[in-house]
Structure formats: structure tokens, C-alpha cells
């Protein structure tokens, strides 16, 4: 198992996390993944990369620094994303019962190691 896959697997042990993927920020393609059955990794990767890209432009326009973490809250769960430098994005999909605070800490740690 690669180092990236090991880190993703560790993240997936957090309560409520359905899966995580490491995504190429430029094209939204999967670099590594650790997903539960039923989670479409390719969709997660493409959508999250696009969202992060748009947010980067918005925060830049607002005169703010780069996003370091984002949470998309929805009725049925949460998408979490942490850019790892400029080329990679770590993404996790969490259910409504997830410990988002713990997942955030794990993701910031993992993204720091991967950057």
C-alpha cells in the first residue's frame, strides 16, 4: 500500500466517513482512493476539484489567501476538502452522523504530509 493510500485509509476510520480520495487539482482525476461501496469516486473527485477551483478564484478576488479547508454541508451529509499545495486536493465524503471536527483535524494533518 502506498503512503498516500495508507493516509487515506487512516482517514476512512473516522466515524461517519464514507470514503476519501486524493485528487489532481488541475483535471479532477483520482490519484489515490479509499472508498466504501456505493460512493462514486470519479464523481467525488471531479466535483470537488471544480468546487475548489472556483473557490480559489473567489477568495483570490476577495483579497484572501488560498483556502486551506472547506466543508460543503448538505441535508444528507458533508463533503470535506483540503488542498495539498496547488496540485492535489484531499477530499472526503461524510454522512450526517460523522464526527466532522475529528475528520477536519485528520485531513489537515494528512494534507500537510502530502503537500
Amino acid at each position, binding site marked *: 500500500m502506498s503512503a498516500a493510500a495508507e493516509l487515506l485509509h487512516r482517514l476512512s476510520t473516522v466515524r461517519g466517513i464514507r470514503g476519501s480520495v486524493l485528487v489532481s487539482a488541475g483535471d479532477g482525476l483520482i490519484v489515490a482512493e479509499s472508498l466504501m461501496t456505493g460512493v*462514486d469516486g470519479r*464523481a*467525488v473527485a471531479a*466535483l*470537488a476539484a*471544480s*468546487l475548489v477551483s*472556483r*473557490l480559489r*478564484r*473567489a*477568495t483570490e*478576488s*476577495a*483579497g*484572501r*489567501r*488560498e*483556502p*486551506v*479547508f*472547506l*466543508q*460543503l*454541508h*448538505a*441535508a*444528507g*451529509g*458533508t*463533503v470535506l476538502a483540503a488542498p495539498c499545495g496547488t496540485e492535489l486536493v484531499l477530499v472526503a*465524503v461524510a454522512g450526517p452522523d460523522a464526527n466532522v471536527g475529528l475528520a477536519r483535524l485528520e485531513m489537515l494533518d494528512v494534507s500537510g504530509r502530502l503537500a
Partner: protein
Amino acid sequence: MSDDIRGMTAELAADPDSLVFLDLGEALRRRGQLDAAFKVARTGLHRYSELARAHDLSARILCDRGERDRAFEAWVTALGLDPGLVSAHKGLGFLYYYAGDLASAEKHLAYAGQADPDDTGTAAALERVRAGRAAAPAVAPATREAPAAASVEPAAPAAAEARVEESESETLGAASGLTFSFEESSPSPVQEAVFAGLDGGTDGLLLVDAGGLRLGGGLWNPDGADVADSVAALLAGVSKEAARTARLLELGEWRGLAVECGDGNLFLSAPTESTLLLTVRGLDIPMGRVARFAERASMAARAWLERSE
């Protein structure tokens, strides 16, 4: 540059936490250097967001720039922090006068006059407002419930139906220690006071329609530049992407998007189906509080939208 301004600039450079920015900003405003004054005020507000006098300074400069809607919100914010701030009462007195709400103008100017009986300028302005009410009681516009939190805040007018004579406005503005410009095409300040009474109503809260156009609020970058319209245009795309992501991942309707930057926290929400609200705060405000504040701002935005329809 005068020696005073040079000295205050040096003092502020040596100690960025110094409150001398209040005097420096006012001195620059009086010299007509409004961009420089506003930059000083914005920098001070970033450090002292709870200081009523900093919002008051910002409001004076905005008024001189002809941005009465934002000046109104800044003065309401100032009174929310310090209900007894005389200069904010004077400023709001003028703006209500300009909007044709003489009753509210009188309340603010009367408060200012009581607090400072030796201020002949305020006394003269109050006399003029009272004379106007006595002469034209029938043209007082209808009022609606004031959105502001300050207990001294009178009701805000629904529309500036009874515009005062331009020359009288200028006289009153001068009497209040302010300098104003009067473009008839400018909207009434109260018409755009979406977030009146909420901290950050003029900077850090931005209401946008589905097409990326600004509906209310304001946003300034750390250098003091107005970035509201450019950010508003980009937010429409972010919102569509957020909705698409949630839908395609079968997570249901999206409810909010929290973004942590290296120098601030942003929260994007949708007060209604066709509007977006961006809330921006510094890193000193935890994201959980930013989200709660965004909820309050969303409620204010919904109420404002309902009143506007």
C-alpha cells in the same frame, strides 16, 4: 502633507495598534484625501471592529464619497456598539433628513443636541428640521419597523418620497460637521440597509442574486479596495457548483459552504432559492460562530427581501 498628518502617519507606522488612526483618518478626510482616509479607517476597523468611533469615521468618509447607503449602515453599526455616540446621531439625522423622514431626523438631532447643548450647528440643523415638519406635515413618508438593534434607532423610512431641497441638505450637512454630495439618482440609504444593526453590515456581509449581482452589504479587501461586485460575480458559479456537487453525490440540498483561508473564514449560504449570502470574518472568529452569524444575517436578508417585494 502637513506636519500633523506626517506625525500621525509615523506614529501609526511605529505602533499599528494605536488609536491615532481615528485622528489621522479624520484629518485626511477634512483635507479631501478620501481614498487615503478610507484606507486608514479600514485598517483600523480590521483591528478594532467593536469600536464605535471607527465605524463612525468610516461612515463620515463614505458620506463624503457619496456612498450614503454604506454610510447609513456604518452609523447604525456604530450606534449598535455605542447608542450614545453623538456624531453617529448627527450623521443619521442628516441621512434621514435627506431621505425625507423628518421625524427620525428630528429624533437623532434632538439626541445629539441634548448630549452637546453647546453645539450650535446641531441646534441650527434641528431647528431647520422642526421648521420643515411644521411647514409640511403631510409629506412625511410612511415608516416601517426599524431593522436596527440600537434602542435609540428610530424607524427607517420606506422611501424617500419627500426629498428635501438640495441647498437645504447641504446646509444641514455642513451644520452637522460633514460634507456631502447629492446625486439625485443615488438610492436612499435605508433602501439598501439589508444588514442594518448587524456587525459587518458594510464589510463582510454580501447578499448576491442568482446572476451574481450585488443586492446589498459590502466587501472590502484587506487593502481597503471595494471587491463586492467582483466577488459577487464569482459567487454565482460557486453556488451552482456546490448545488451540483451535493445533488450528484446524492447528499440532498446544500445548506452551507464553509471555507477556511489562511487569513479568514468565509461562509456561503442561501437565504432564499434565488439569493446567496457571503459572510466573511477574520481568523479570530471560529467557523462555528461565523456559521451562526450567517444564520442571523440570512434571517435579516429574508426579511429585507420580503419587504422589498
